[in-house]
């Protein structure tokens, strides 16, 4: 279910305030409604919805503030370390598999400008600098002063045994500065490791298969309302201001 909506929703309430934020109220009411709808729908999907909705509602009422966020994940990719190292070292490639990144542009060989998408598609920017690298083995970087948030990242590449490819370990730590960083921290904290795993799965597909599998844009028959909601709630989908819900209903209108 999806990055767009679900992550902000389930992460609602992770901010510093202890009072109920609008997001939290939204999650409570939305989750509750979903649960009730699910119960009335006598199907496995209904049960899943009820459980999911109930969980969302519960979480909304019970979250502790967590100001920092560490995302870490590991993956085995069937390619040589130098191939994936070369791909990663060109940071402009990262948005091709890291869904929360909008763009990365090179400023010079070691410095780059990053734009990420926060909840609601709000852009969050920072400049980063490579602080250490060993060819085909390691890259680490951190954000420069005057960024929207503080970032420390590192990635390690190791050959896997018996020619199984390359083991990749990634750790990225985000410390939100005041203001814009908070919303992103909400997103990153909940889904951080999960989102990173999905990113690395996309990287694996790109390195091994040359493309990322997708069903985005394929044909289908009439969707119902709840399916539209489910589509938006897909946490593996990129955070984007273009809501998939709108897309779903546009398609529905075309077919109707």
């Amino acid at each position, binding site marked *: 279910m999806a990055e767009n909506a679900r992550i902000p929703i389930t992460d609602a309430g992770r901010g510093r305030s202890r009072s109920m934020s609008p997001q939290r109220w939204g999650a409570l009411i939305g989750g509750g409604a979903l649960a009730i709808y699910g119960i009335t729908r006598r*199907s496995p999907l209904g049960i899943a919805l009820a459980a999911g909705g109930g969980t969302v509602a519960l979480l909304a009422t019970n979250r502790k503030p967590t100001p920092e966020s560490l995302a870490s994940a590991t993956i085995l990719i069937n390619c040589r370390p130098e191939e994936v190292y070369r791909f990663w070292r060109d940071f402009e490639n990262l948005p091709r598999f890291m869904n929360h990144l909008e763009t990365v542009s090179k400023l010079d060989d070691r410095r780059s400008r990053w734009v990420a998408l926060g909840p609601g598609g709000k852009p969050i920017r920072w400049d980063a600098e490579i602080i250490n690298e060993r060819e085909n083995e390691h890259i680490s970087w951190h954000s420069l002063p005057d960024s929207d948030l503080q970032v420390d990242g590192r990635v390690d590449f190791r050959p896997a045994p018996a020619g199984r490819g390359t083991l990749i370990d990634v750790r990225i730590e985000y410390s939100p500065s005041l203001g814009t960083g908070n919303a992103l921290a909400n997103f990153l904290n909940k889904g951080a490791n999960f989102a990173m795993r*999905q990113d690395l799965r996309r990287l694996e597909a790109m390195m*091994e*298969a040359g*493309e990322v*599998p997708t069903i985005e844009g*394929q044909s289908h*028959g009439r969707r119902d309302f709840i*399916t539209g909601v489910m589509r938006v709630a897909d946490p*593996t989908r990129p955070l984007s201001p273009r809501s998939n819900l709108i897309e779903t209903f546009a398609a529905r209108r075309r077919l109707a």
Partner: protein
Amino acid sequence: MKAVCYMGVEKMSVETVPDPAILNPRDAIVKISSTCICGSDLHLYDGFIPTMEQGDIVGHEFMGEVVEVGAGLKPDKLKVGDRVVVPFTIACGNCFFCKKQLWSLCNNSNPNYWIAEEMMGFSPSGLFGYTHMMGGYAGGQAQYARVPFADVGPIKVPEGIPDEKAIFLSDIFPTGYFGAVMADIEPGDTVAIWGCGPVAQFSIRSCFMLGAERVIAIDRFDYRLRMAQAGGAETINYEEVDDIVQTLKDMTGNIGPDRCIDAVGMEAHDHGLMYMMDRAKQMARIEMDRPVVLRQAIQACRKGGTVSVPGVYAGFIDKIPMGAFMNKGLTMRAGQTHMMRYMKPLLDKVEKGEFDPSFVISHRVPLDRAPEMYKIFRDKKENCTKVVLDPWADGARAA
């Protein structure tokens, strides 16, 4: 184009939907000449497999002509005009699993990997026309389909072979064969096969190909048992015996069948209290599958024997006799078929005239009649064994 869409439990509907488009470089679009309803589609129809969505195009057994190819496909692999059978599993060809010929476990073909990961720890490959957990790819009960990684799966079919002899290479012939392969048959073995549906029919014949001495097929429909007998099997109508395990012992000199194949899966039928409980639990969604056959197979199997499970299971099952399984030293093997291993050799058999898979067909109808055929197939009416749909035939009622 016309496509059969899942619109809710027991609701399949032929809808007019947009034609598919190339979405990735290694995609191809196939104009479908023949497509079938599979027994595993009935699990979707009955609503027992989670993550279906209204509007999903179903169907995973199809063949046809390539009408468009993506920029990433080399002409020596696949080009416009090729006549192909498309396997129901989707594989990238380059991951750890594909390289090990474990095609149905491809790591890169399920865009919804994470859903399956939550339920099963890891995701198998994407499938056509199945649940969103299995990728949510639009299926082949339609006039056209988009085929991802089209340089890996589809196999070219020579012009001389008619659709009805080639179509089952898309799933049930290799799947039946895989069921027999997984049973690790040794010369002289007796194999018991639960179910006499289309996959089982191919399993029966494959067991003999692989050296089995006897095959005992179990079902409750006479017309299916007769088809099994035609393939050389001895048969048991389980509704006519009190104790299937004892019957199998009696038929094998009290040693039990060496190999047992569950070609039924999650919606098995039986009589007795245990079955009623499974049925009730499945209706209430407390238990996702009815593992009647698995229990019987584990009990009946010869000590040290093999239980092969080509039948589809979706989730969690209750009261599996693990004590029997462990203490009898059994082996269990299961899986979606590693299609690309078997399609070519089985096509060769068809091409040489050694085997004609078309014997399972009971119905040939236009695609428009798919919704009613789901019900007929599910309820085993009209001696239904296998329905082949023509996506381009006139929708008017035809025999």
